[in-house]
């Protein structure tokens, strides 16, 4: 039997889904070329990066935190992968040179991302720095490090194999989409069916009660931020691989897109309430909107205005229909 909240939750999901379907229908009739298998896959591949970041962001926000560093972490870990793969690692100190295989480079990149996330977590739990500040600082630091590592230039020409994740298909489905699907699947399972997942809701719902029930709140937060960092690195892998190059500006401003996706998906910024499925819908709404407006050939100047308006509408539909606290 469903409760008030299940109903609401369902309703919310359903509502943003409604907004999404509405958009799809409108674009399908108005924008020729929008409703096609090609474009279907295209939208999916184009949201894949934002989706990876947003899943991590969802976990973070569910604990009542926020992560502004996802974009820069994406850039740095992408650059690390590209750099190691292209130039290897020189350690003049020991006049040593380390070459990297694709796998080695990718894994190192993922490690870097996770480490940066862990660092966020430590700042937030040990030094008790508000998540907003801690991750904002990381955002600047990681961006600076990226520019230093790349010397401000793009690292290009990373080769076929590395391009696999970003460009290839597996069983007819783009590898990027497989990757996101896996990420989303794991996240949903973890949130719904593991202790860790429930503790995330507990920490976000009532941190004090969580502590009093003996949960190790700090450890939970550490894990969540580390995961967010790792997923940003996955995003970095996808971007770098699909562009066959790592640019120092990669991921600039992605933090807002991803937070937007999460919130449009019905997750509350105060923590404790929300779902990864909602986030998927949120990401789709943004992706469909971007694609549709371009295919409709909306003049560049108008795109922003319309995009903003549509997002307001999409969320308003939710709220109006789930009215009553």
């Amino acid at each position: 039997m469903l409760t008030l909240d299940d109903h609401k939750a369902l309703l919310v999901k359903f509502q943003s889904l409604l907004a999404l379907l509405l958009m799809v229908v409108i674009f399908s009739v108005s924008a020729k070329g929008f409703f096609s298998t090609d474009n279907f896959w295209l939208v999916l591949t184009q949201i894949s990066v934002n989706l990876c970041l947003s899943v991590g962001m969802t976990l973070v926000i569910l604990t009542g935190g926020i992560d502004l560093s996802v974009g820069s972490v994406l850039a740095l870990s992408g650059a690390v992968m590209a750099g190691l793969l292209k130039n290897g690692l020189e350690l003049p100190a020991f006049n040593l040179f380390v070459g990297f295989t694709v796998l080695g480079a990718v894994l190192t990149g993922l490690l870097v991302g996770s480490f940066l996330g862990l660092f966020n977590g430590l700042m937030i739990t040990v030094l008790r720095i508000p998540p907003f500040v801690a991750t904002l600082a990381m955002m600047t630091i990681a961006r600076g490090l990226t520019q230093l590592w790349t010397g401000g230039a793009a690292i290009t020409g990373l080769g076929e194999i590395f391009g696999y994740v970003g460009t290839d298909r597996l069983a007819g489905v783009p590898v990027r989409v497989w990757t996101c699907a896996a990420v989303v699947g794991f996240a949903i399972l973890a949130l719904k069916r593991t202790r860790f997942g429930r503790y995330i809701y507990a920490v976000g719902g009532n941190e004090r009660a969580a502590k009093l029930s003996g949960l190790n709140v700090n450890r939970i937060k550490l894990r969540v931020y580390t995961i967010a960092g790792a997923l940003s690195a996955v995003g970095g892998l996808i971007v770098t691989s699909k562009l066959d190059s790592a640019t120092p500006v990669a991921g600039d401003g992605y933090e807002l897109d991803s937070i937007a996706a999460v919130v449009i998906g019905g997750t509350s910024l105060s923590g404790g309430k929300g779902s990864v499925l909602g986030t998927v819908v949120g990401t789709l709404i943004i992706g469909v909107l971007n694609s549709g407006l371009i295919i409709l050939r909306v003049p560049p100047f108008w795109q922003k205005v319309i995009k903003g308006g549509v997002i307001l509408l999409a969320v308003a539909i939710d709220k109006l229909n789930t009215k009553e606290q």
Partner: protein
Amino acid sequence: KQKKQESAGGQEARSKGNIAVIVSTLNNPWFVVLADTAKTRAGELGYEATIFDSQNDTAKESDHFENVIVGGYAAILFNPTDADGSIANVKKAKEAGIPTFCIDREVNANDVAAAQILSDNYAGCVELGQYFVKKMSQKGKYVELLGILGDNNTWNRSKGFHSVVDNYPGLKMVAQQGAEFDRTKAMDVLESILQANPDIDAVFCGNDAMAMGAYQALAAAGKADKVMVFGFDGAKDVIDSIRDGKIVATGMQFPKRMARMAAEQADEYIKGKRDFPQKIPVAVELVTRENIAKYTAYGRQSNE
């Protein structure tokens, strides 16, 4: 590049004064080259140069000018964020008696800058446009990717291009979208455009980063060999791509040449020279598969 900076720092001992390099953005490799070259050249000439990143924000740029004026710099090597917006900043410097040498981008005012070493974006794109028409043999569908919509160079380039291309009714622009001079955005935008217009023949991009993104999108769609991509800047990737026959043409601006000239003029100014021509146009050269041999990243083979 760290090394370069050290070498510049190494000259401090006999430093003849401070020179500020205020650059519109370091988000784009092209400008990084511009700034680094200016800094290095100034260093070689015995000055201590510092780079300021305006991050495409005229207000930040104005802060930099204020700092430079208070900091008692001898000259400013300046790459403006906005031809109009930056005028006030240059004026301020002039009133404070600090000469400003504009590089690559102009400020729309006479006699405020000591000299303006300009890469003529408009003319460059006119030439590019003419080559475009030739390559398209005067007919076909094309897409234009604009840069940052608030950036006057975005429009200089677009206007220069259209001043030629629009005279040929056979050439139809099926889509014009902004991609913020960004590689990733360019790829995503063009991918979407291709959904509605699978049959385009060419893409004109407001800079090389976008050209690379556009090429990536076409490659992903398996159209790389059917659609011609045109860029602008002369960035490393694009020069290589032209050599590999991936991209058709770009307009080579000479960041290094311009930066060096600016540094040298600043040196002369400090040594007392005053009569600089207001505007020193540095022609943008069309780089194509035919003449690619002559060029390298950001410049000519010869003077590299």
